[in-house]
């Protein structure tokens, strides 16, 4: 006689309970998926206000949204474009002077006086300035290059969101460009640090002894951030505190002194006539302003002063920020999305083919994984690049393989003649340490990459960190949903795509 050998039986969930939980979960996924993917005009706003989906609010790398650049010309150097504008303008009074005054060099024209007898000296001073500028801009993700020996190019990924890139969110786009513009405006300042008794350079005088190097007054300059508040933090040395106090208390009460770099007022003030009480001075500002000022002041306080003045002499156009289209094309982000959707489809189809309805449980996890990653990338402002997409795909593979491994372990248990419930229990027990070890070491690795790496590498580490956590949580959530969805099903073996093992009880 043949019969099915049964193990311990689990607690059964009622059909209604199972249907309610499944319906709630699916509804939540559908609603979240709609918010994540569909952008539209807000009803009733006459097309003025627009809702941008989660996906279109994710910051993208330069390969998808391009980069912005600005060219810095030192005093005595102009672009060939500016040269041509004057020379080809018949009404310009400098028209005849220019050919004698300048010598062409690649895309530039350099004043003969600047080149002098030793043109290398001038080129070296530009190269030295480029290193200082690279130091200042490096922390903000800019790259600095020397073009044609006598000009410096600053480039930075715009990191627009897709909505900003396509002009659907013009506020974000213009604010991103104005942040770049502000950084370029202030971080290229030349000249030393001074504290003056007025806001205008020409009509004010330094309140500190001219022989003193104001940079020596500071122990450190840093960017301070806490609970959404940002500030420039200046810490005075003992000597600096004493000297500054003397200068400040001897000033006219009720007036303020201003910090200048070169001839530019930074609008960071010290009240005159009142003694300083602490060695630390905090100036709160918007994040980008506080960042720029702290970088500039630190660089100047460290004695890294630019030799040349850039874009100042009026013969060049004002510092022009040019935003370039991405190298991969304007629709590269769309193609990346298509590729990721195809990967998701592959994972879903593969699991359904192999595990039938149990594969659908894995498909739900794939959807949840994708939604969590998209939402995290949007909320945490993680920059998505091609490498980042790879990390997200690796995380998806990790989650699917963790689930497939447990499905296989359960299948192996059912082949010994156990019931599904008993097999699930044993299968999860047997794969527990494999999955835990794998996720634990990967989580540590991802954290290390996030904390130590810079730029794209750090972003990749962060994506994988979230992906690993998500994978482990969903591994357990799979068990819950497996139980919920399969509870009302009569033939659980068929549900899972397993073959029922029939044992001869005469044994």
């Amino acid at each position: 006689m043949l019969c099915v050998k049964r193990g311990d039986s689990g607690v059964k969930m009622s059909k209604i309970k199972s249907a309610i939980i499944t319906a709630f979960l699916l509804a939540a996924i559908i609603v979240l998926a709609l918010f994540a993917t569909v952008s539209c005009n807000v009803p009733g706003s006459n097309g003025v206000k627009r809702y941008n989906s989660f996906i279109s609010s994710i910051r993208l790398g330069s390969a998808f949204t391009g980069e912005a650049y600005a060219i810095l010309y030192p005093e005595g150097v102009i672009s060939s474009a500016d040269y041509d504008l004057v020379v080809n303008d018949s009404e310009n009074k400098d028209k005849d002077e220019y050919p004698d005054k300048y010598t062409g060099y690649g895309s530039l024209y350099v004043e003969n006086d600047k080149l002098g007898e030793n043109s290398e000296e001038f080129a070296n001073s530009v190269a030295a300035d480029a290193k200082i500028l690279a130091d200042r801009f490096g922390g903000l993700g800019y790259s600095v290059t020397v073009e044609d020996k006598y000009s410096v190019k600053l480039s930075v990924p715009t990191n627009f969101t897709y909505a900003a890139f396509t002009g659907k969110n013009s506020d974000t786009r213009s604010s991103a460009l104005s942040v770049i513009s502000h950084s370029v405006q202030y971080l290229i300042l030349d000249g030393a640090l001074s504290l003056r008794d007025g806001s205008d350079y020409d009509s004010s005088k330094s309140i500190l002894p001219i022989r003193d190097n104001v940079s020596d007054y500071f122990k450190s300059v840093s960017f301070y951030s806490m609970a959404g508040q940002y500030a420039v933090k200046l810490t005075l040395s003992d000597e600096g505190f004493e000297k500054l106090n003397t200068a400040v208390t001897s000033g006219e009460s009720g007036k303020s002194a201003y910090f200048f770099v070169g001839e530019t007022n930074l609008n960071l003030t010290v009240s005159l006539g009142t003694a300083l009480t602490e060695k630390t001075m905090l100036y709160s500002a918007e994040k980008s302003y506080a960042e720029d000022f702290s970088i500039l002041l630190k660089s100047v306080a460290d004695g890294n002063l630019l030799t040349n003045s850039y874009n100042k002499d009026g013969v060049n156009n004002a510092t022009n920020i040019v935003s370039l289209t991405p190298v991969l094309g304007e629709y590269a982000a769309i193609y990346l999305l298509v590729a990721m959707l195809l990967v998701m489809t592959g994972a879903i189809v593969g699991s359904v083919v192999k595990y039938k309805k149990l594969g659908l449980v894995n498909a739900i996890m794939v959807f949840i994984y994708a939604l969590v990653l998209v939402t995290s990338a949007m909320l945490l402002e993680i920059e998505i690049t091609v490498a980042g997409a790879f990390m997200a795909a690796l995380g998806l593979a990790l989650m699917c393989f963790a689930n497939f491994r447990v499905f296989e372990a359960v299948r192996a248990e059912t082949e010994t003649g156990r019931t599904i419930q008993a097999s699930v229990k044993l299968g999860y027990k047997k794969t527990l340490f494999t999955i835990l070890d794998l996720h634990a070491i990967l989580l540590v690795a991802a954290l290390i990459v996030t904390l130590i790496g810079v730029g794209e590498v750090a972003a990749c580490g962060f994506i994988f960190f979230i992906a690993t956590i998500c994978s482990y949580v969903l591994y357990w959530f799979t068990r819950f949903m497996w139980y919920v969805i399969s509870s009302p099903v009569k033939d659980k073996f068929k549900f899972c795509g397993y073959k029922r093992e029939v044992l001869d009880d005469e044994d």
Partner: protein
Amino acid sequence: MKTNFKLSSKMHIFIIISVVIIAIGTLVGTVCHFVAGGYFNGGEDYSNYKCVTVSYEYVDFSSQEEVEKMCLDAFSKAGIKQNSVQYGKTNTGGVVVYKFSASTDDTKLLNAEMLIKATIDDSFGTGITLSSGAVQNDKALFTGIKSLSRCAIAISVIAAAHFIYFLVRYKLSMALAALLADAHNLALFISLITLTRIPVGPSTFALAVLCTLLTVIGTCFLFDRVRKNIKNDDLKKLSAFELTDLSASESLKVNALVPACLAALCTLLFILLSISSLSPVVILSSVLGALVCLVSCAYGNLMFIPSVYSRFKLLGDGFNKNYARAQKEKAKN
């Protein structure tokens, strides 16, 4: 998926393959360092280049297409071809930037520039300006070195954490094999990048990290099988070679499928982004770099590490046996 591959007995072949690739890669890199200007082939982001920038005002040019057509005609007549083209926007107009390799002939570039200028004078008059020149790209010096050093530190720390974790959770022989796997796969990846002269860009650093993560995943699956098989009463009687071969064949599926899935994604991205950019060249280096990374990891995890680990296990088992015998004799005496 179980196979009958006798990986353990082929250790010498795998070691020879790895050593030869790493040695040739190092040699090529060293020669290129002195002859071709760098150990690695710096990509567009890390190498010098020449460029022609055409700026125009919207008042005179409603679209960039006519500017582009004029420039492409001039480049074609001058016999030069740009590596990439980017379009930009300013407050008052647009910019088209054509980038050429640093080795582009200056005379040809100048001819192209003159042709464009002549066309501007003949057809347009004003509203367009042209500049061209060489770019001394110091990105490698400024940002590249920082990224490289931080990436190297991160990978070293991961390898150390990998070793410690395996030492605690698995066995010393497995921890040593894991450490060797990290070093081997990364060295193989770097050597293949050097050997094939695939242009190195910022994404290469991320690929190095991906290589390490794939190694961690591969070793986790392999040594988990070994750990389980050792605990099995029947299997623990097997020799070190047989046990390792069995474990390697049991973990073959997952260790082959993960790189295979990523390789499929890589190919998919290559096709789609080539369509997007209308030029496969732009994305080719990143895709080739990723494929090299996946091949290095697949080879290391599937073949090299199981074969080398079998020797580590043999040594470990021998040491344990001798130690147990010594302890027994000590107890007897």
